[in-house]
């Protein structure tokens, strides 16, 4: 009697276990809820309010302090609660934020006139707070990540009741972007900056003037915020905001399908179809200005020979990589700094003309063979190429490049390494390395680093470095563009780099909301105010 019962129970347990196996085999291909919709224009409702806007972030944050982490996810969160003196619009141009107006006559002295605004702790914004914030966020020790955006400053002082003047040591064409929450300034109360134990920790939540006030931060889990009713600008349409860290792509997709998320970051190229099938979903794909390419170390054999560098460059099939591996969600790179960034302060036509001047090593295996034949290793050699585990696309691109190189006799051993190991490997003597640089700010050009004095591959060509230094000191955007183009041209002529692609990023927007003016800069602006309910 009891034996029979036990047997049934045993059988039940095993059936369940096997059922799981069967489901394991079919679940991924199972139909997704919802039907196929194409990104259709949506109608928004001007009077509707949302109780909560839920956003799924693809990265996780341990601190909300941008100035120490420098992470994009930290910028996205900080933009909710804090502001700089200026901010950027969807084209990357500067628009007012805490400063109602600002002016400069010589790109050296910048005068900002503050608007009346209140911090989330209830205190009004004073010039003292602004000066203290500037001094905090340009301090290399307290704020290494934001200090990078601050050139040498002669003085920061309150020059009037509502006026703050920043005077630089030397003119700068890009400084105007620095005091924005997209780059190097988050205005906070002076008292809080001085008394907070650890800025951006769960116990010292960010205090600022942004459209929302952070109420809770659980590292590795989520951030909760409520609407700042005293915000000076147009207010957010959701009463509360919840930013969840969901690092697993598939889990984020399930949560989005389920309707748990209104906005989800980082739709992987290979999942795009599945995401777009979610009812009412719209995918926003934008150029993210990221540059992916190979860097050669001219001090390492055999890459000290330009012929070898050129041979490798000619063996890269950019079109196959962008259209095949990346499903067209990338542009073959023919330069370093993306045209979208070069156009800042000038025009798209100027940027295109500049990129057109750059020499391109076209995909041509015969040319690659010919170059290699001229080198000291005509029959080829073996080298390794490591890629960071955080960017699997680079792994696949590496294998694609390895396949082509094999045909000209070069054996490329591809290796995956943790991202932190990768970012530490620059300039440590590897002959060829991947670089992937996603600039958070429109004025942060990859070339500033890659062609500058502290360049990661350790080349010492004084002409290139000199031109780059001139571009950094340029007083007009046009001058900066011209110098950078010249420096890039030299670097590409010597084939110190082999550009591969300029990337994109895709964000999924659910049926409950719509985004106004989505661009690659969207999440560096006070973005929750630009998310509106659909009708």
């Amino acid at each position, binding site marked *: 009697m009891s034996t029979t019962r036990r047997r049934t129970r045993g059988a039940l347990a095993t059936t369940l276990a096997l059922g799981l196996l069967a489901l394991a085999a079919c679940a991924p291909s199972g139909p997704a809820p919802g039907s196929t919709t194409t990104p259709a224009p949506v109608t928004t409702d001007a009077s509707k309010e949302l109780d909560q806007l839920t956003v799924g972030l693809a990265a996780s944050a341990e601190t909300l302090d941008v100035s120490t982490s420098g992470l994009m996810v930290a910028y996205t969160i900080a933009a909710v609660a804090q502001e700089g003196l200026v901010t950027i619009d969807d084209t990357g141009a500067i628009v007012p934020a805490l400063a109602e107006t600002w002016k400069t006559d010589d790109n050296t002295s910048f005068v900002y006139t503050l608007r009346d605004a209140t911090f989330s702790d209830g205190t009004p914004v004073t010039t003292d707070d602004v000066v203290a914030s500037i001094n905090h966020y340009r301090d290399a020790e307290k704020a290494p990540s934001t200090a990078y955006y601050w050139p040498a400053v002669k003085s920061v002082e309150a020059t009037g009741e509502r006026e703050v003047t920043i005077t630089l040591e030397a003119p700068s064409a890009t400084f105007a972007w620095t005091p924005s929450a997209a780059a190097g300034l988050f205005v906070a109360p002076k008292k809080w900056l001085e008394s907070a134990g650890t800025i951006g920790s769960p116990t010292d939540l960010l205090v600022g003037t942004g459209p929302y006030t952070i109420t809770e931060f659980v590292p590795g889990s989520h951030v909760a915020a409520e609407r700042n009713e005293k915000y000076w600008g147009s207010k957010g349409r959701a009463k509360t905001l919840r930013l969840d860290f969901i690092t697993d792509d598939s889990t984020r997709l399930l949560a989005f399908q389920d309707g748990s998320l209104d906005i989800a970051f980082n739709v992987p190229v290979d999942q795009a179809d599945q995401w777009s099938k979610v009812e009412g979903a719209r995918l926003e794909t934008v150029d993210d200005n990221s540059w992916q390419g190979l860097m050669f170390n001219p001090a390492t054999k055999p890459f000290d020979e330009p012929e070898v560098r050129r041979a490798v460059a000619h063996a890269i099939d950019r079109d196959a990589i962008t259209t095949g591996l990346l499903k067209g969600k990338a542009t073959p790179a023919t330069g370093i700094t993306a045209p979208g960034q070069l156009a800042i302060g000038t025009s798209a036509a100027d940027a295109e003309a500049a990129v057109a001047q750059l020499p391109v090593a076209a995909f041509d295996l015969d040319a690659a063979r010919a170059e290699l034949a001229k080198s000291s290793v005509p029959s080829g050699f073996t080298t390794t190429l490591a890629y960071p585990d955080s960017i699997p696309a680079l792994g*696949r691109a590496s*294998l694609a490049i390895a396949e082509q190189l094999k045909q000209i006799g070069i054996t490329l051993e591809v290796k995956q390494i943790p991202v932190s190991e990768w970012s530490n490997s620059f300039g440590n003597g590897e002959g060829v390395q991947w670089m992937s640089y996603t600039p958070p700010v429109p004025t942060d050009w990859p070339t500033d680093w890659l062609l500058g004095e502290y360049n990661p591959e350790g080349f010492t060509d004084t002409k290139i470095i000199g031109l780059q230094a001139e571009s950094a000191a340029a007083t007009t955007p046009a001058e900066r563009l011209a110098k950078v183009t010249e420096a890039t041209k030299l670097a590409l002529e010597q084939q110190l780099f082999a550009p591969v692609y300029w990337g994109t990023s895709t964000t999924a927007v659910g049926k409950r909301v719509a985004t106004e003016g989505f661009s690659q800069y969207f999440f560096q602006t006070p973005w929750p105010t630009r998310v509106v309910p659909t009708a």
Partner: protein
Amino acid sequence: MTTTLPTETGLRARLARATRRLRRVPGTVAVAALLLLAVAVLVIVPVAPHAFDQDVLLGATPAGTPGHPLGTDGLGRDVLALTLAGARSAIVGPVVVALGSMLLGIVLGTLAGYRGGWIDAVVSRYVDLTLAMPALLLAIVVAGVVGGGYWITVLVLVVLFSPSDIRIVRGAVLQHAHRPYIESTRVLGLPAWRVMWRHLLPNVRPLVLTTMLLNIAYALVSMSGLTYLGLGVSPSAADWGLQLSDGRDLLWTNPAASVVPGLAIILVATAVNLVGDHLSERLDRGEDA
């Protein structure tokens, strides 16, 4: 408990015995054994190296694409050919890992359990230490200092797997070392190694075998986990674990790219355990399985 009949001799008798034995093999085990046989063939006979050449422009395609019954992976490589070719690296390493760690487990576990005293204290603390050591840290350091490579990975896994084997063996030995039949061998004055080897080990053997079989399954899964640290096989190699982790991105484009190698791992692991358990039971019953 011996069931072998004593009088039959000659080829015919042997054949008859073999048939009887085969008849006693349950269906599940027989199927599992056949599967293992097929996999063994794959391990020994290499698949045509060009069967899974990459086709970057093609990229990932779903199952049923012309010429690719199981579709292609992110690099446009044929999933079926890749899976067949991946058998070798997927299986050889894990088997070595299981054997190696069990060897450590038997030697150290038996010594610790039987000898007790300071040997036990040292071995047990080594076990606690290795168990508590973050595997990731160890793997990163090895990859960074020694460099990657398939066999280095196997070695790292042996070290990581050994503590649980040592503990299992030690626990079992401890239990048996104080049973009367072992005590009596001591009274008889048998040397310690002989007691351990001849009398203790056979008694803990079922546990040793069962753990080792399970370790093959664990190792099959763990090998792939280390690839992303720069250990393990090269990203271009044919390997089930690698297919699995790469295919994860393609779960929605071509599920076969990860489901098929995943199922292969599950099937092999289960088959190894079913067949192994069966053999172990027969050994135990005194049958020469």
